[in-house]
């Protein structure tokens, strides 16, 4: 190798110790890391498509089939819409769980070590991955809602859809926090994948997805009210199906005012999200330093 004498030196002003001062980054680290996670996901199309498959199957095939088979008082379209919206409650946990798997892959393949020695807050790593998970979930939700609408689900538009958006966002943050906790507690992919059904799929069947929670045995119905998914589904339906969506909220709270019940359910989701995300950040920060 030929040795040259030209030094590789910075051209910006230096401090007394001969180095540039550490500057605040114009782009927060969380956004940089979210971009990284999205760039990695784009190179793995399965990560985009697989979480969408089950909800799409439910919305496009199972919901219409159930609606045709079961004689529901509210009518075929209403039941199909009822179930199609429920699949949002399946998509979000599944997608967030997949995102949590990405954290384990980072740890096993070594990229996490680079991030842990970077001059950024450890919380930025969690938040960056969360932002990417939210972006992907949003994209998939749009596809799911559009596909189910084309299939015959009847959604209402208007300001009330903001309840759907708020609930979906907070529920996704909550589920990602849960995925992050699992990825710290269950550091092997095998253990993590084994836990996903318990977190992402089992609650789906008790939270009012295919039938109201009032159809459950009393004790199970009471337990269902403690599930964040129950509140999320009630808000999804309230936001997207107009007055008919208030029944799920009423099954939880038993009040007369729909906006009041909706606000209460959103507060429950926010409380869960705050608790879980705080725990996730603490666990991750602690795990990042042995």
């Amino acid at each position, binding site marked *: 190798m030929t040795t040259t004498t030209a030094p590789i030196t910075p051209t*910006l002003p230096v401090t007394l*110790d001969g180095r540039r001062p550490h500057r605040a980054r114009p782009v927060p680290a969380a956004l940089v890391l979210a971009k990284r996670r999205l760039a990695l996901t784009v190179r793995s199309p399965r990560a985009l498509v697989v979480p969408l498959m089950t909800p799409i199957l439910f919305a496009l095939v199972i919901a219409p089939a159930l609606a045709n088979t079961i004689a529901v008082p509210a009518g075929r379209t209403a039941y199909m819409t009822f179930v199609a919206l429920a699949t949002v409650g399946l998509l979000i946990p599944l997608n967030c769980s997949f995102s949590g798997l990405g954290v384990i892959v980072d740890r096993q393949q070594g990229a996490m070590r680079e991030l842990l020695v970077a001059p950024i807050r450890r919380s930025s790593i969690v938040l960056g991955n969360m932002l990417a998970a939210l972006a992907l979930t949003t994209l998939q939700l749009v596809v799911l809602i559009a596909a189910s609408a084309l299939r015959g689900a009847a959604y209402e538009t208007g300001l009330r859809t903001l309840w759907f958006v708020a609930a979906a966002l907070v529920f996704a943050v909550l589920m990602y926090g849960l995925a992050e906790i699992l990825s710290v507690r269950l550091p092997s992919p095998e253990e993590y994948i084994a836990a996903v059904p318990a977190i992402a799929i089992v609650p789906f069947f008790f939270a009012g997805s295919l039938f109201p929670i009032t159809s459950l045995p009393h004790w199970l119905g009471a337990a269902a009210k403690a599930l964040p998914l129950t509140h999320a589904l009630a808000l999804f339906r309230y936001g997207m199906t107009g007055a008919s969506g208030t029944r799920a909220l009423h099954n939880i709270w038993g009040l007369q005012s729909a906006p009041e019940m909706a606000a209460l359910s959103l507060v429950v989701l926010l409380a869960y999200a705050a608790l879980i995300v705080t725990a996730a950040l603490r666990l991750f920060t602690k795990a990042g330093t042995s």
Partner: protein
Amino acid sequence: MTMTIGAPAVEAIELDKVYAGEVHAVKGLSFRVAPGEAFGLLGPNGAGKSTTIGMLNTTVRPTSGRALLGGVDVAEDPIGTRARSSVVFQDTVVDHPLTGRQNLDLHLRLWGTDDAAGRARLSALSELVGLGEYLDRPVATYSGGQRRRMEVVRALVSDPQVLFLDEPTVGLDTRVRHDLFDVLATLRERTGVTILMTTHYLDEAERLCDRIAIVDGGRIVACDTPANLLRALGDEVLELRLNQPEPAGAALRAAGVPPDDILVIGATVTVVLRAHAADDLVNVLRERSFVLRAVTTRRPTFDDVYLRLTGDRIADDH
């Protein structure tokens, strides 16, 4: 964060680390590295080298003691000290699906150096190590040597004051290892970066480091330049393989060889030659009816240095 003028680039003060399960990995380790110096921590696996580097780059929390970069305690300003350093790990840490440029760009952004100077440095360093034409290909398509060079460029592209190299050549074939030595030596010359590296390869430590600390059981047992460490063993050692090494060692001690100059490991007795000639010592043993299976005289190596200080051979721990 303001570095203290005149402070060592790296300083460990009585660093101690006890892991869960009472594993005492580092025991009161202290050393200083001057700015621009290349300092090596040499020792077998489990000696505490990686734990020491972990305490210096904030990925390991010390049980006690202090770790300082440029006079600043890493515990008091972890983000500021991490901004001044960079790490080349034993295993690759870049994202294989992304291109080399995307990986380097990520590092620049995370270290807050994604300005014109940073990008110029990215181009210059990449060209210097021969990666310029590969930058826009996914890292997954790189050869092992290219990936290692990528790792070094990644670590240097943020213009760190201190570069930590944690067993950087483990698992690489000989040609790639030597290629990497050249790259590191050239980059050090061009950038003046302070290097702290851990290794259990003796030739690597001798070739790259201005000073070497030999670490054993979590402690530094010797710290000096490679030349001085070897000088302590003189110009020549005698290596004997025989059936009764312990009695042979006793016979040599009776003949006037200082006990510290006699090393018995397995069936091999190694003797530092100072006041005695090799032939004389061989004759002493033959006169006492020892059967010598092999007799060799050679120059001392770092293995001998390590053996003398710790009683273990580094090669056995690979």
